């Protein structure tokens, strides 16, 4: 305690005017006086105390009367000495109390309180006799609210690591699906290891487990954990690493909120699963790790597959292999069998468009020919009809002619001639009908029934009445 910078001015002067808890003070003061009451104080004059005696008596008195009390106030002048002991004052508006927190207790603090931070201390009042310095020897320091300082330390570290990107989801690596070797950093005597091994044995007994022992709570635990992680990171014998411990108080789990541990996890080239405490406990290790498992057992389940599941998968793979090979064989066989048919189909496919074109052309040509033919047909039919019409006409004419011939026959002058008539004809064959067509002395022919007679005009004797020669024939018919 040589480094205790105690301020003598803070010494205890009016000790006895202070109001210690009743009874305790009376008893201890009785003891203090009792020790020294071996002589009659009045006999040798006033009782004179040595400084050491006074300080010792006061210290004993204080410690007896003010043990295990809570005091609240603001932290000021916090100083952590090289020895690890912490010195500071607790103050309020009107008073100040010198305090000390020994190293063993200070080591359990998640962080140093800030100046001005509202805290409460559990401890004992005492006197540093060498300097007569009154002080509170704190055993516990808590920030306002439950776990205040822990929460604050957690948040600060979280923010710091987050700022560096160490908590980013992008950093999370996939765990190997089938690790051969699993590393574990935890206490070899802890429940966490038992749980992990039991799960690994049940699910994946082919796994090899390498355990690196580390204390998981108390002073130095964080360093051992971080060392364990770095050990595996350096040797690289494992496929995946589980870091963790079983449940405990916030303080018990604190090593896993240690910056060194967090950084060791972040730097590990091997994927890390963090499994600290129970489901509700979240630590910085959990946040930095590639996977946060709610419990150590869950961590073990997360890192290895279940033998039964794997067996099922392998069975399925075997079936698929057989099926794939078989279907390959079948496909080839089918192709062989299909060869000719496929060839025919291919040829057909080539031919079909040609056929189509041919058909189209054929159809068009046919239509053309038909239309030409039908034109001609029409013409032929017209001709036929024409012909038939002509025939009809011709026939009717012929009939007409036949009729006429009959009638002509009936009217023929030759028939008349048979009855004795004769027809005079000029030398050039004209029928001589009128007197004036004759000239005396001029020869003419007489056509009689059975021949021609040559004649000569002697005299002309015209009549007074004459007839129209054109109508002679018709009029004679009647």
């Amino acid at each position: 305690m040589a480094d205790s910078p105690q301020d003598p001015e803070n010494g205890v002067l009016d000790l006895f005017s202070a109001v210690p808890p009743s009874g305790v003070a009376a008893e201890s003061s009785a003891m203090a006086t009792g020790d020294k009451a071996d002589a009659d104080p009045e006999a040798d004059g006033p009782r004179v105390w040595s400084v050491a005696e006074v300080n010792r008596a006061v210290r004993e008195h204080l410690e007896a009367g003010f043990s295990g009390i809570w005091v609240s106030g603001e932290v000021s002048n916090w100083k952590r000495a090289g020895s690890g002991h912490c010195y500071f004052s607790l103050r309020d508006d009107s008073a100040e109390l010198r305090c000390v927190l020994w190293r063993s207790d200070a080591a359990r603090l998640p962080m140093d309180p800030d100046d001005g931070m509202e805290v409460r201390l559990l401890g004992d009042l005492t006197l540093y006799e060498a300097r007569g310095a009154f002080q509170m020897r704190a055993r516990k320091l808590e920030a306002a609210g439950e776990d205040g300082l822990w929460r604050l330390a957690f948040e600060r570290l979280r923010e710091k690591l987050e700022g560096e990107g160490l908590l980013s989801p992008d950093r999370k690596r996939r765990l190997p699906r089938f690790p051969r070797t699993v590393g574990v950093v935890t206490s070899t005597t802890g429940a966490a290891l038992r749980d992990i091994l039991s799960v690994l044995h049940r699910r994946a007994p082919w796994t090899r487990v390498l355990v690196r022992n580390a204390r998981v709570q108390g002073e130095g635990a964080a360093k051992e954990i971080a060392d364990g992680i770095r050990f595996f990171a350096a040797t690289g014998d494992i496929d995946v690493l589980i870091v963790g411990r079983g449940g405990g108080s916030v303080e018990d789990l604190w090593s896993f909120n240690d910056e060194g541990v967090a950084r060791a996890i972040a730097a590990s080239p091997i994927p890390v699963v963090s499994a600290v405490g129970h489901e509700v406990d979240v630590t910085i290790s959990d946040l930095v790790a590639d996977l946060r498992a709610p419990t150590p057992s869950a961590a073990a389940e997360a890192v290895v597959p279940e033998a039964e599941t794997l067996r099922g998968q392998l069975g399925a793979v075997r079936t698929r292999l057989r099926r794939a090979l078989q279907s390959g064989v079948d496909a080839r066989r089918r192709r062989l069998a299909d060869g000719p048919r496929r060839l025919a189909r291919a040829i057909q496919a080539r031919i079909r468009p040609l056929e189509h074109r041919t058909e189209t052309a054929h159809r068009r040509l046919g239509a053309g020919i038909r239309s030409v033919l039908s034109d001609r047909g029409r013409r032929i039919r017209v001709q036929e009809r024409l012909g038939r019409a002509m025939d009809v006409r011709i026939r009717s004419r012929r009939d007409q002619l036949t009729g006429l011939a009959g009638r002509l026959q009936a009217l023929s002058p030759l028939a008349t001639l048979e009855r004795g008539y004769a027809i005079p004809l000029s030398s050039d064959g004209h029928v001589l009908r009128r007197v004036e067509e004759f000239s005396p002395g001029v020869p003419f022919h007489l056509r009689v029934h059975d021949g021609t007679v040559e004649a000569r005009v002697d005299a002309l004797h015209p009549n007074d009445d004459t007839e129209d020669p054109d109508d002679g024939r018709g009029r004679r018919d009647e």
Partner: protein
Amino acid sequence: MSDDATQPGLETRLQRLEQILVKLEAEELDLEDALALFEEGIGHVREAEKTLSTAALRVEEVLGEGVTRPLEGSPGTTAGATGRVDS
């Protein structure tokens, strides 16, 4: 079982099996190649199944770099002398 270290692990085998299945199921292979792949695949399945049938977890405490000792009292711990870590 230090021979394990020279053998492909489950991860490797299952990855290879996936490749084989993809090839076998999707690709037009010569019958000979298909058969070779099939046989390789079945071999991996058999070896993997053998691995799965391992009876007991091996648990070792690592005392220092390359130095381990069997951890007593672990479930299914196999007896084994302290030795060097593989690889």
